Every structure is written in structure tokens, then in C-alpha cells.
């Protein structure tokens, strides 16, 4: 495994109660400061793997190591962005974003100041006192992202964050996400079922085969992104090759 791996997945398998085998023996190394995508058709256990890395569900076999420590549960170096946003409906944007810090016992003035900074970064500066039901799906997920950024974890785990967001919003959001995360040098682990999304965002794409999930292939798009516009990236030869390569593998599973 590479020396700069921040997350190591060692022979992880997951069998749910009732005997459904979601994952069968996966080993992986996820590099520090990069965006890695877990990609595969529905039922390949990609969300299970992400939640095992997060420490939210225990693996049936194998181990996860993060920054040289074995994972026994959630930890401060990992933050999670949920597919269904998981915002408190009775709390406004400010409190939702500050919620991770509230749970850590940070005094209110401090956590609000940190939350305001991150609300600004995700482009919701004027919505601090709005409630989740007053926001669109895309804006709600920005709140979810700001909450994850606010606790200043090294690793951001994102579970299909754009799946409940419409296509136009999704593209805009992807572009902003890319800029924001590269700027912050976070390690991101991203679950998606969209090939274009994976190829556009990732440094490394982990392809999983379905039922039970096993490691199929690791694709590294090697797209030069510095100083290039989103449209240039989408016309890049390496981007198009990566999309094609992934599709050639995934079409056998559909």
C-alpha cells in the first residue's frame, strides 16, 4: 500500500442480519489529500463501505485504519455528508451548521463564528436564519457540507450527496465542491452511481462489482485540473477516456 494512504481498508466484508452479503473482502488504500470515488451499480455495497469507514456500522470481517489507528467508531478526523441531508427541521441553518461543534461542547459564540465562516464558503451567507424547509434540495446539501467542514475533519465522507439535487444544480455544486475541497486540501471519499460525476471529480475511482461488492478496478483519470474551466475539463481527452473505461467495465454488471 502506498505510503501516503490516510485510510486503509483491510479485507473488509459485511453481512447484514438476515444473511445479505453486501461486501466480500475488500482491501484498499485511499491517498491523503485526494478525492476518491466509490462507484458501482446499486447493491454493490458502496454506501455500506463508506459507513464502515465512517464507523457508523461495524464490518463483519476485516479492519479499517485511519491515520494509523484502527477504527472502532466515528472519530473527529472524519465528517459525514448524508444522502438525505439529515438536517434538524426545527433548527435554522446557523444551528444546523454549528451542530457538530455544539455536540463537542464548544461555547455558542465560538461555534457560531466558525459556522458563519463556512456558511459563507458554501454560498449561503444570507440564509443563516432560514429553516431547512425553506431551502431547495441543493441548498440543503450545502448546509450538510458546511456542517461537515465546520468540524474541521481531515477526511470528508460523502454519501451520494447530489442524488436528491436536480441536474443543473448538481453541475454547479460539483464545480464549486472541486474548488473548495482542493483549496482546503481535504481528503474526500465520495460515493456515487454517476460515471460522469466520478470522472469529473476524482483523482481515483474505485469500481465495485455488485452483490456482494468486491473490488473490480481502480481507475485514475489523471486529469489536469489546475487553472482550467469546468468546460475544458469536460472536453479533456483523459476525462473522456476515463468515462469510457469505466463504462466498458460497468456495462457488464447492468
Amino acid at each position, binding site marked *: 500500500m502506498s505510503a501516503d494512504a490516510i485510510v486503509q481498508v483491510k479485507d473488509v466484508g459485511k453481512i447484514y442480519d438476515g444473511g445479505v452479503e453486501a461486501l466480500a473482502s475488500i482491501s484498499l488504500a485511499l491517498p491523503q489529500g485526494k478525492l476518491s470515488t466509490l462507484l458501482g451499480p446499486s447493491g454493490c455495497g458502496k454506501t455500506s463501505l463508506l459507513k464502515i469507514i465512517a464507523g457508523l456500522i461495524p464490518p463483519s470481517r476485516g479492519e479499517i485504519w485511519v491515520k494509523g489507528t484502527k477504527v472502532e467508531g*466515528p472519530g473527529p478526523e472524519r465528517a459525514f455528508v448524508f444522502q438525505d441531508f439529515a438536517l*434538524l427541521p*426545527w433548527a435554522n441553518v446557523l444551528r444546523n451548521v454549528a451542530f*457538530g461543534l455544539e455536540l463537542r461542547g464548544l461555547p455558542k459564540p465560538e461555534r457560531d463564528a466558525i459556522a458563519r465562516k463556512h456558511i459563507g464558503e458554501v454560498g449561503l451567507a444570507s440564509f443563516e436564519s432560514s429553516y*431547512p424547509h425553506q431551502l431547495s434540495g441543493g441548498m440543503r446539501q450545502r448546509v450538510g457540507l458546511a456542517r461537515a467542514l465546520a*468540524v474541521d475533519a481531515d477526511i470528508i465522507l460523502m454519501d451520494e450527496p447530489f442524488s436528491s439535487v436536480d441536474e443543473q444544480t448538481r453541475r454547479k455544486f460539483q464545480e464549486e465542491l472541486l474548488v473548495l475541497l482542493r483549496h482546503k486540501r481535504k481528503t474526500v471519499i465520495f460515493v456515487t452511481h454517476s460515471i460522469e460525476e466520478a470522472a469529473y471529480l476524482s483523482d481515483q475511482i474505485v469500481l465495485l462489482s455488485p452483490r456482494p461488492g468486491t473490488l473490480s478496478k481502480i481507475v485514475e483519470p489523471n486529469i489536469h485540473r489546475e487553472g482550467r474551466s469546468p468546460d475544458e475539463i469536460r472536453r479533456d481527452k483523459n476525462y473522456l477516456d476515463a468515462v469510457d473505461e469505466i463504462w466498458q467495465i460497468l456495462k457488464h454488471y447492468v
Partner: protein
Amino acid sequence: MERQSWIAKPLFWQLVSFALFFGFWELAGRWPISFAFPPFSKTLVALLSMIADGSLGKAYLLTLQPLIIGIVLCSIAGIGFGIGMGLSRAIEWFSLPIFIVLQAAPMAALIPLITYIYGIGITAKVLAVVVLAAPVIVMNSYKGIRNTNPSLIQMCRAFLGTRRQQVVKIILPHAAALIFAGLRLGLAMGFIGIVIAELLITPTGIGDLITYNSSVADYPRMFAAIASIVLVAALAIQGLERLERKLFPPEMRGSENVG
């Protein structure tokens, strides 16, 4: 833009509904369908005279006492118990079957038994309120706790919340609306309980007004007492429902965000 005409206003139709109801009551009373059924106008006069001579006020002082004590007891013990059932599997297994039976059973049938054990004092009346109101209050609190969005609990764990924080910051706020709705339903049951108790155990308060006026054949006064308790219960429950919508607007409740 089309202007909303008076015919499209809910208040208009509500007033029409009341006018029709009281109109038919007046007609039925004048017919008369029974000697013991007074028309609306006579009942209204009787009601006003009972308010004026203070007998209605005195009666309510007596009636509301056990009702309020009973509902307060239920709110403290019942909500506490329901929350306990929702949070602890052991308490749930131990007591859920009892409350399911209690909720389905016609609890009014227990009131003669309560009289037999506790006599005819205020204790028996408080108990009558409690046996009717408690099951729905307990069950609503329990369901409120159990309905917590699992995704929010997972979020709390992912951001390193303790079990205590999970309960205080996620589960209880999530359940608050359903618990409050349980209190409202409990109060409705409590009104039934207190009226039955005052008619069956010893005639006091409103129950006394109904029984006494019936025995001396003063039917307008008897109907005025009945109408007044219906009105008081309806207003109290309607008021709580409005308070509920104000405190817990549907779009800010947890339960609507499930799924």
C-alpha cells in the same frame, strides 16, 4: 386576480352550519319531539340565568378540579412513562402489551370498580380521569420517541454525539409535537372521564346540575348544563390544537421529514 367572494370564506359556512343546527334544535323543541326536549331559545335563557346566579360557575369550580389534577398527573407520569418505553427495550417489553390493551378497552367500565375501592371522594374522580386519559398520553409519547428519523440519529453519532445528547438534542425535540398531540387527546378523554364520574359516582359540579335538574324536570336547565360542558370541552381542545400548530408548525416537525 379573482376576488374571494363571501361564499368562499370558511367562516361564512361555519356560521351557516351553526345557524342551521340551532334552527333545527329550536324546531325540534317546539314540535315537540318529547316533553323533556326544550327548544334552543329556552335552553339559552336557562344557560344565561345559570351564569347570572353563579350556579354554573360554582359547578365548574368543582368539576374542573379533579380534571386538572388528573391531567397534570397524566402529563408528568404518562409522558415520562411513554418516553421510558420509547427509549428502553426492557420497559417497552414489560409494559407495551398492557397499554395496548388499556387503549383498546372501554375504560369507562372500570369507573364503578374505582368507586368500590376509593369511595366517592375526589380521589375516585381524579382516578376516573387518569384511567381514561393515561393510555393515549403514554402511547403518543412512546410513538413520538420511536418515530425518530434514524438518519438524524446516525448524523448525531457521526458528529460524535453521546447517547445523552442524542436523546436531548434529537429524540425529544423530534417527539415533542406528537407528545403534545397526545396531551390534547388525553384532555378530550379526561372530559369524558370526569362527566361519567360525576354522573356515576356522586353528583357534584356539572354532573350535579344535570342530575338535579333532570330529577325536578327543569329540562331547559338540564340541557343548558349539558350544552355548556360540550362547549367548554370543544373550546379547550380547539385552543390546544391552535397552540400545537403555533408551537410545532408542521414543516418544522421531525416526523414529516422521515423517508
